[in-house]
C-alpha cells in the first residue's frame, strides 16, 4: 500500500520543538514583565538621595526559571496529561491515575523507614551532619512523615469520603490528646508532653476553630440568606468587648456573659439589619463595610468606656464550669484539686474543647435551622426575594433573623476570643478580619459547613505553618521570614482555588426536602458567583 506523506507533515513540530519555542516566548514575556519589577530597585542612600540598584542576576534567574518551567510543561507535562486520557489499545483501560502511581506500597515502606531512621537519629543528627545538613535532614523527615500520612489517607479515601463529618469531629475531639501523648512519648515525660502541646493546641487548634466558628456564623448570613456582609467582624468585636467590659468591671463569669454577649451581638445584628433591609448585593456590602468600621472607630474613640487603642487587659479566665479555675493562686486551681503537676497547658486544652463545643453548637444549629421553615426561607430569600414575598414569606423578619443569628455566633466567638487572649483592642477587629472570614466562606463553598471548615483549616493553618518553615531560611538566607509572604500566598491560593473550583471546595448544596430517597445533586448545575 502506498503511503503518501503530505509536505505539511514535516512542518508539524514535535513537543520538544514546540516546547523550545514556547519556552523562548515565556522567557521573553517574563523579561518584559520583570525587567522593571525585579531588574531594577530603587532605594535611598545615606544622604536621602534616590539610588538605583540593578539586580540582573536575580532577573536572569527568574527569566530562566520561567522558560525552563514552560519548556518542561509543554515538552513533558502536556503530553503526559494527554496520555492520561488515552485508553490502552490492548486492555481498553485508561492508564493508572497519577495518585495510584504516586502512592505505592514500596514507596510507603521506604517513607516509613526513612522517617523512623531519622527520628531515631534525631538527637545525633547535628553531630553527624553539621547544623546545615541536619536542617535538610529534618525537612526530609517531615516530607517522609507527610508522605506516609497521605498514603494512609489515600488508601482509606473511600471510607473517609463516606464518613467525612463523623471522622472530622472525632479527629478534632482526639486532637489534643494525640498531641499531648505523642509529645510526651517524644519528650519522655507527661510534663514535656503538656508543655510542648501548647503551640499545637493554641496556635493551630484554637486559632483555626475560632475562624471555623466565625465563618460558620457568617455562612448563615452570606451562604444561606445570600446577604453579602463585609462588616461581620463588628459582631465579633461586640462579643469580645461585651465579655471584656462586663467581666472586668462587674466580675461576672464567662458562663453568664457568653449568652449575654451573643444576645448583645444579635441585638446589634438587628440594628444593622433595619437600615439595610431594602439593599442587596453591592449596596448592602458597602453599608455593612461601613458598619464594621463604625464599630471599630467607636471602640477607638470612646476612651472612657473602651480605653481606646490601648484596649482592655486583665480579662478574667474561663472557669471550669465554676468548679475549678485555671489561676495558679486560687485555692481551687485545677492542678491542686486534681493533684497533678502545674501547667498552663490545661487551660489551653480546656479552651480548645470549649471552642470545639461552640463550633459544634453552631454547626448543629445551622443544620437544624436549614430544615426548619426559617432556614428554608433564608435559602429561598437568597434565590428570589420577590417569589418569597408572593409565597407569603415576611422577608423583613427573615432577613433580620439571618442577621441576628449570624451575629449571635459572631458574638459567642468574640467573647471566647476575649477570654482566650485576656486582652482585647480595636486592632483585632480590622476590616482584614472580615475579609478573611468572608474569603473562608467563599473558598469553602457558600453554604457548605464541611467545605468552610476545610477552607479555614487550609487558610489559617497554612499561615500558621509558614512560621514553622525554618528550613526555608537555609534556602533563601537568614533574612528570609516566611510569615511576611502570608498575604501573598493567601491571595495566590484564592486565585488558584477560584480558577479550579469556582464554587469553592464543596460546591454542591445538600437538599433538605425529600420524597423518599436522598440523592446528591451535582454541583455543575449550580449558579456561579452568587452574592
Amino acid at each position, binding site marked *: 500500500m502506498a503511503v503518501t506523506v503530505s509536505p505539511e507533515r514535516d512542518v508539524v513540530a514535535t513537543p520538544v520543538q514546540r516546547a523550545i519555542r514556547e519556552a523562548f516566548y515565556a522567557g521573553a514575556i517574563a523579561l518584559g514583565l520583570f525587567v522593571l519589577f525585579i531588574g531594577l530597585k530603587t532605594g535611598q542612600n545615606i544622604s536621602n538621595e534616590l539610588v538605583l540598584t540593578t539586580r540582573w542576576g536575580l532577573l536572569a534567574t527568574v527569566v530562566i526559571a520561567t522558560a525552563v518551567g514552560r519548556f518542561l510543561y509543554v515538552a513533558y507535562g502536556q503530553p503526559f496529561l494527554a496520555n492520561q486520557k488515552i485508553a490502552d489499545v490492548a486492555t481498553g483501560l485508561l492508564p493508572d491515575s497519577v495518585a495510584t502511581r504516586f502512592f505505592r506500597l514500596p514507596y510507603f515502606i521506604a517513607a516509613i523507614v526513612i522517617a523512623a531512621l531519622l527520628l531515631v537519629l534525631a538527637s545525633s543528627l547535628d553531630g553527624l551532619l553539621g547544623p546545615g545538613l541536619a536542617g535538610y535532614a529534618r525537612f526530609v523527615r517531615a516530607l517522609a512523615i507527610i508522605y506516609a500520612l497521605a498514603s494512609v489517607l489515600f488508601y482509606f479515601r473511600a471510607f473517609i469520603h463516606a464518613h467525612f463529618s463523623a471522622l472530622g469531629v472525632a479527629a478534632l475531639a482526639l486532637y489534643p490528646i494525640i498531641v499531648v501523648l505523642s509529645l510526651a512519648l517524644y519528650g519522655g515525660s507527661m510534663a514535656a508532653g503538656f508543655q510542648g502541646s501548647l503551640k499545637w493546641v493554641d496556635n493551630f487548634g484554637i486559632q483555626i476553630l475560632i475562624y471555623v466558628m466565625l465563618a460558620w456564623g457568617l455562612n448563615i448570613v452570606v451562604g444561606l440568606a445570600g446577604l453579602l456582609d463585609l462588616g461581620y467582624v463588628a459582631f465579633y468585636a461586640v462579643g469580645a468587648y461585651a465579655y471584656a467590659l462586663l467581666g472586668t468591671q462587674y466580675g461576672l463569669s464567662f458562663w453568664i456573659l457568653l449568652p449575654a454577649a451573643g444576645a448583645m451581638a444579635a441585638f446589634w445584628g438587628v440594628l444593622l439589619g433595619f437600615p439595610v433591609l431594602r439593599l442587596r448585593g453591592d449596596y448592602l456590602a458597602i453599608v455593612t463595610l461601613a458598619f464594621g468600621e463604625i464599630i471599630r472607630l467607636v471602640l477607638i474613640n470612646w476612651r472612657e468606656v473602651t480605653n481606646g487603642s490601648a484596649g482592655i487587659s486583665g480579662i478574667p479566665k474561663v472557669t471550669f464550669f465554676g468548679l475549678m479555675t485555671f489561676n495558679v493562686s486560687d485555692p481551687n486551681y485545677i492542678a491542686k484539686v486534681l493533684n497533678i503537676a502545674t501547667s498552663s497547658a490545661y487551660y489551653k486544652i480546656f479552651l480548645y474543647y470549649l471552642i470545639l463545643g461552640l463550633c459544634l453548637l453552631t454547626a448543629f444549629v445551622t443544620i437544624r435551622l436549614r430544615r426548619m421553615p426559617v432556614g428554608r426561607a433564608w435559602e429561598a430569600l437568597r434565590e*428570589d426575594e420577590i417569589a418569597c414575598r*408572593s*409565597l407569603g414569606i415576611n422577608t423583613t423578619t427573615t432577613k433580620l433573623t439571618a442577621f441576628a443569628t449570624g451575629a449571635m455566633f459572631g458574638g459567642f466567638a468574640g467573647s471566647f476570643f476575649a477570654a482566650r487572649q485576656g486582652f482585647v483592642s480595636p486592632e483585632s477587629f480590622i476590616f482584614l478580619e472580615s475579609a478573611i472570614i468572608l474569603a473562608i466562606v467563599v473558598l469553602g463553598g457558600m453554604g457548605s459547613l464541611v467545605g468552610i471548615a476545610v477552607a479555614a483549616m487550609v487558610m489559617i493553618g497554612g499561615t500558621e505553618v509558614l512560621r514553622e518553615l525554618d528550613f526555608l531560611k537555609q534556602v533563601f538566607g537568614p533574612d528570609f521570614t516566611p510569615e511576611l509572604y502570608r498575604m501573598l500566598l493567601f491571595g495566590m491560593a484564592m486565585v488558584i482555588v477560584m480558577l479550579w473550583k469556582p464554587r469553592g471546595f464543596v460546591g454542591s448544596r445538600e437538599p433538605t426536602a425529600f420524597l423518599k430517597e436522598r440523592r446528591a445533586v451535582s454541583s455543575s448545575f449550580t449558579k456561579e458567583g452568587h452574592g
Partner: protein
Amino acid sequence: MAGTTLLDIKGVQTYYGNIRALNGVDVTVKQGEIVALIGANGAGKSTLMMTIFGAPRARAGTITFAGTDITQLPTHEIARMRIAQSPEGRRIFPRMTVMENLQMGASLDNLKHYDEDVEKVFTLFPRLKERIAQRGGTLSGGEQQMLSIARALMARPKLLLLDEPSLGLAPLIVKQIFDAIRELNRTQGLTVFLVEQNAFGALKLATRGYVMVNGNVTMSGTGKELLANPEVRAAYLEGGHH
C-alpha cells in the same frame, strides 16, 4: 357555580414613577370562575397582576378580596389571604430542588397537608415527579412553568393568579397546562385569574374574559362572546390560531 365575588378590583390606577400604567381598571372575579385577561404587550396585564400583590401599590382605587380590603396590605400579608401566584417569568428557586420548591410553596399552609398535596400536584403534573431531586434551574421551560403552578397550588389557595402560563412553551405543553387548569377548576372548584397573550387558548378556557388596551379595560364578556367578537378576532385572534 359562579357565586359570590372573590376578587373585586375597582378603579385601580398604578404608576411607575410618573408614568401611568393602569387608568382605573375594574375587574371582578367570582368564586369558582376562570377569568382571563387578554391584551397586547405593554397593555398593563402583568402590572395589574402585580398590583393585586401590592408591588407596585395602587395609587388610586381599591382591591377587595373576599370582603377584605387588601389594597394597602404588605405583599406577604396578601399572600397569606390565600392568594397564590405563578408570577411572570415563573420565579422558581433555581438552586433548590423540585421538592424544596414545593415545600416553600406549602409554607403558607404550614406544611399541614404537605404529603397529601405533593401527591396531588404530582398527579396533576406527572413530569414533576420524574424531576423530584433535580434543581429548579435545570428544568425545561415547560417543567419550570409546571413547577411554578404546582408551588402556587401547595399553598391551598382560594384564588390562583397565573401570569402568562403559556409564555415560550410548545403548543403541546401549553395544552397540558391549560388542561391542568381546567381540571383544577372542575374538580376542586379553584378560582383562577389568568393573564394571557395566547388569547384563543385563554378565552376557550375561561368562563369570562377582559380585554385590556393601554391600561384600560375596553371589553368584557363570557369567553365565548369574546371569541365571537369581531374586534377581538381582528386584534388578537386572526392569523394566530393555536
